[in-house]
């Protein structure tokens, strides 16, 4: 038995092409198909027409938010799985996703969004940073992987319990509905404002992940051996935690919780890169962006009365697919 992999450049090119195609489709199709040329012309005109406004104010932010959020989820999923050497790790494991949800829900609960709409995603990003910092402090400086995971589970449970408390105490059924629907995860309310709010955290997070491939490769040999090969483990963890808090926090703050992308995408692509952590990163980012764009496109095109939330769709399709991967993998490595 030997390892067969697709060449990295070929894989990146294929995924890049797929992403470009999905981005184009995402701009063209929705509740109403728009002719691109006409819409472009209109959006560039001095007084943009309806089509132009749909393109630049609705479709473009929605598509780009899907792209950035999906890429962050895929990328950080790959990072967390490699850092913790656990294929079941998700980007939200260390508190970023639930913290972001709690921050955003708190903003909704206290009606801060009525004062200024961007307070919702800003609260989310703040929540993600706070929850991740809490996991970091709870686990301690030289925590084992198990301690980190347990601290993550504890903080996640606490954040979810706090969200339940806010739902419980919500002043009106409308507030409950607003919070519950936001939690499901959707790109339907994407605006250019939201795009600008998520962009700095997302890009800063990605930047922090630059050059993290080598140490993640070395971690394949275990933490002690990687240290003997020159990896500063505490510093690496700190950097990757902050990056995940920023990137995933920014994504969740704007879109709500979108499950399974960060878990499934790295899992699916790992065999194609020979299980090598450093090669998984860029590939998972592209894969995550493709998957979220495709899921959002599907949500828009499904002929149903109430538009499905994209978070519902990814979980609905993701869970059985994940099971399929597990059953398939069971035979490979007993």
């Amino acid at each position, binding site marked *: 038995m030997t390892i067969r992999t697709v060449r990295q450049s070929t894989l990146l090119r294929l995924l890049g092409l797929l992403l470009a195609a999905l981005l184009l489709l995402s701009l063209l199709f929705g509740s109403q198909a728009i002719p691109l040329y006409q819409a472009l012309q209109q959006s560039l005109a001095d007084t943009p027409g309806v089509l132009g406004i749909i393109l630049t104010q609705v479709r473009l932010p929605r598509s780009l938010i899907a792209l950035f959020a999906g890429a962050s989820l895929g990328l950080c999923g790959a990072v967390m799985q490699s850092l913790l050497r656990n294929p079941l790790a998700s980007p939200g494991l260390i508190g970023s996703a639930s913290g972001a949800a709690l921050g955003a829900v708190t903003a909704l609960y206290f009606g801060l969004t009525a004062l200024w709409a961007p307070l919702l995603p800003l609260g989310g990003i703040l929540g993600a940073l706070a929850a991740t910092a809490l996991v970091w402090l709870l686990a301690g400086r030289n925590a084992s992987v198990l301690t980190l995971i347990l601290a993550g589970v504890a903080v996640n449970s606490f954040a979810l319990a706090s969200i339940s408390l806010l739902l419980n105490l919500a002043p009106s059924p409308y507030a409950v509905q607003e919070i519950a629907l936001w939690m499901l995860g959707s790109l339907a309310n994407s605006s250019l404002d939201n795009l600008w709010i998520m962009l700095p955290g997302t890009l800063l997070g990605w930047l922090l992940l630059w050059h993290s491939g080598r140490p993640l490769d070395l971690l394949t040999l275990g933490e*002690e*051996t990687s*240290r*003997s*090969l020159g990896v500063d483990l505490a510093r690496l963890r700190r950097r990757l935690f902050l990056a995940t808090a920023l990137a995933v926090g920014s994504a969740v703050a704007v879109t709500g919780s979108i499950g399974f992308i960060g878990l499934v995408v790295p899992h699916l692509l790992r065999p194609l890169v020979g299980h090598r952590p450093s090669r998984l990163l860029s590939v998972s980012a592209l894969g995550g962006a493709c998957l979220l764009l495709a899921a959002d496109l599907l949500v828009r095109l499904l002929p149903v009365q109430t538009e499905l939330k994209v978070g519902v769709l990814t979980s609905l399709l993701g869970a059985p697919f994940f099971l399929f991967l597990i059953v398939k993998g069971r035979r490979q490595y007993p």
Partner: protein
Amino acid sequence: MTRLVGSALTLDLGGRRIVDGVDLQLGPGELLGLIGPNGAGKSSLLRLLAGLLEADSGEVRLDQCLLADYGAGERARRIAWLPQQAEVHWPVSVEMLVGLGRSPHLGDRQGPGQGDRAIIEQVLRQTGLLGLRQRPFPTLSGGERARVLLARALVTQPQCLLADEPVAALDPAHQLDVMELLGDYCSRGMGSLVVLHDLALAARFCSRLVLLHQGRVLAAGPAAEVLTSANLARAYGIAVDPACLFAHPWRRIPPAAGPGG
């Protein structure tokens, strides 16, 4: 001149004294055997010398400078550490795993160059792994895994190799191969500290032995001085005729006369 020196090293873990005032010197070109019963503190001593654990007292010096003052990268280029337990978390290929040993010599974003690839190729050949290079690690046997991890440590081309039971999982012929290979590297200047349980193998290949017992050095020096009946009785609680230890029982059959020619 000695290269790696541990002086009065002491380590407490969980309220127990694991290493107790150990002095140890490893010179260039030396193949030093570290022997002693289970729980004598051999692996902990190796971790102290590799800079992976911090001693409660005492110090480790590498070329006269404190090991703790070396940067992580510089230390990784000079000292390679091979743990007892194989720990590999993804089913990556043999070639990729062995290649990881070159990382300390590479820049942040720089891949292995022609020189690095030649070294990897050479070590794969020396450890008999050329035919396995594309195999995923989990599909290898225990002995093959041990050779892959040894190859990973050798491609670093360190000044000092600290190897924890590198031959424990190997068949007799491969034990000879690995010990001869280590001897070969040492003859070209590398210093090796190797934990061994096969006393006859240690007597045959090591230039010097250190016998550890309950965290202390019970005896150190040439094999004949260390492997005495009294020392072995005290350390292991066994009665051995040292003469047997100095007649290591197997040799490799020359290829021409080997089975099947």
